[in-house]
């Protein structure tokens, strides 16, 4: 069983390496069916997707179309029932063991008994970093998300937006090349969300990380992404993949440009078509 799996992995490594050295995620014919008491749920069906280093990819689609599930497959939190996937050229499990990614959940998932600084330290403790190194990474990443001065606060003493920023600092502290974010700003009001979007974009531009970002907001997806993946439900599948021609270095003003509106329009069409298909 293990021998078979690792043999398959090696084969995949060679294949991806020859295809593109910068390929971060390679998904082929991937399907995932949940067996539930009410029968099978086809959460993902026949997904093909390639994500390269430095891409900012958004998954957009109505609730229940499998965005979270796809992200969780990449993070090795779910196992696909068919097809293949590699992350950094290896299986998602191996990538996870290599701590290849940082994952930001839909809710902040901070531990209530830890202060903010201690929450950011959690993955660093698990990685076994020295106290000095931990301190350095904590202050740098809390600074990055504008949370300096809140080190000693407990999560419940912070607003929702600050809690979510703390969870982003926690993911960044691992210093992964790949960031997986599941509707991180979904519960926040629009002004805070705009602000965090800008910060995220700056961070991405500065560090050349690869970001996979789940959202159901069209402006957010278009503003952030170099590639937008439109999904539609029942069964969850990719309806459209849009490569953005907006400049990598962009500010919120870009939302007024015709290029932006054109992409937004195509996303909206995709969402609408995906929906009517089902009705």
């Amino acid at each position, binding site marked *: 069983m293990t021998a078979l799996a690792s043999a398959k992995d090696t084969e995949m490594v060679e294949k991806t390496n020859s295809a593109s050295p910068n390929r971060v995620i390679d998904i082929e014919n991937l399907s995932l069916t949940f067996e539930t008491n009410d029968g099978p749920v086809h959460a993902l069906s026949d997904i093909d997707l390639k994500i390269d280093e430095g891409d900012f990819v958004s998954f957009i689609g109505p609730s229940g179309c499998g965005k979270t599930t796809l992200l969780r497959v990449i*993070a090795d939190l779910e196992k696909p029932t068919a097809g293949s996937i590699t992350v950094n050229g290896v299986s998602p499990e191996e990538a996870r063991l290599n701590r290849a990614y*940082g*994952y930001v959940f839909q809710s902040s*998932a901070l531990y209530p*008994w830890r202060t903010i600084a201690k929450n950011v330290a959690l993955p660093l403790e*698990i990685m076994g970093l020295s106290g000095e190194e931990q301190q350095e990474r904590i202050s740098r990443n809390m600074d990055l998300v504008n949370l300096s001065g809140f080190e000693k606060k407990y999560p419940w003493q912070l607003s929702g937006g600050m809690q979510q920023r703390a969870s982003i600092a926690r993911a960044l502290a691992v210093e992964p090349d790949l960031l997986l974010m599941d509707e991180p700003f979904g519960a926040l009001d629009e002004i805070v969300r705009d602000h965090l979007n800008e910060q995220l974009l700056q961070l991405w531009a500065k560090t050349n990380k690869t970001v996979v970002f789940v959202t159901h907001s069209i402006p957010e997806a278009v503003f952030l992404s170099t590639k937008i993946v439109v999904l539609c439900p029942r069964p969850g599948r990719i309806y459209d993949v849009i490569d953005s021609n907006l400049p990598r270095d962009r500010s919120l003003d870009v939302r007024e440009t015709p290029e932006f509106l054109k992409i937004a329009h195509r996303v909206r069409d995709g969402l609408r078509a995906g929906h009517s298909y089902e009705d």
Partner: protein
Amino acid sequence: MTDATHSSPRSINPFAGLMSGTVGPVIVVVLVILAIWYISAVALNTPFQKGLYERASRTDVPVSQLITDTLAQERPVLPAPHQVIVEIWKTTVQKKITSKRSLVFHTGITLSSTLLGFLLGTTLGILLSIGIVHSRVLDKSLMPWVISSQTIPILAIAPMIIVVLNAVGISGLLPKAMISTYLSFFPVTVGMVKGLRSPEVIHMDLMHTYSASRIQAFWKLRLPYAVPYLFTSMKIGMAASLVGAIVGELPTGAVAGLGARLLAGSYYGQTVQIWSALLMAAFLAGSLVALIGVLEKITLKRMGMAR
């Protein structure tokens, strides 16, 4: 909360103020209990008192005399509260602690085996719960035994434990403590299994994304989550330990301890002595549980979980 809003200063009901805080209602409840106790004492002791009057051929005893007499019998069916309190006063404050007739001495004996048994039981409970949570095999094989262990009446196996341990030369504190352990490991095991399994899925997922080992997940996630459960089950375990210690003293030939006082009291019909030992046991249980409550508050506050 709602009580407080109802009892505004303008309220006309004189009892509204009394019932608003926590002190007021507690006093009322205590008074009601005392009243019921006195009435019951009079009612239960009257037949014996009337028998006394008959033998003395006294026929015209006024009711007030009857009531006073029923509350002052030497071996009443139900002693009056003040009789018990006087007995407790005489056997605590007015006796040297080293005296065999000191209730403090006997309470100390019971307390020490309660604490030892509680410590052993809590440790055993925590260890069992860790095993059960981390191993399916242990979960399937141990849990039924843990549960069925509590279906055996403790009174049935207490003498066996004492006798068997005495036979192998273990006597004194440990056999009694074993019975406390037997009773107290159960709530701790069950509570901790629940606590260690209580982390939210998203928090477990987070640990998974960090590829944390099971040991790391235990120390950094499961254990902190289980702390409130631990304190709750320790309170139950402590009360159970005290019961165990008292039961353990019954078959030891009534030498020392609150259990011994109960047994000696019932041999000689010393109901006042029985009741003072009972009250002392209740007071001890209340204090021990309250002590755990204080520890719980401090711990949760230091963990940042109490707001």
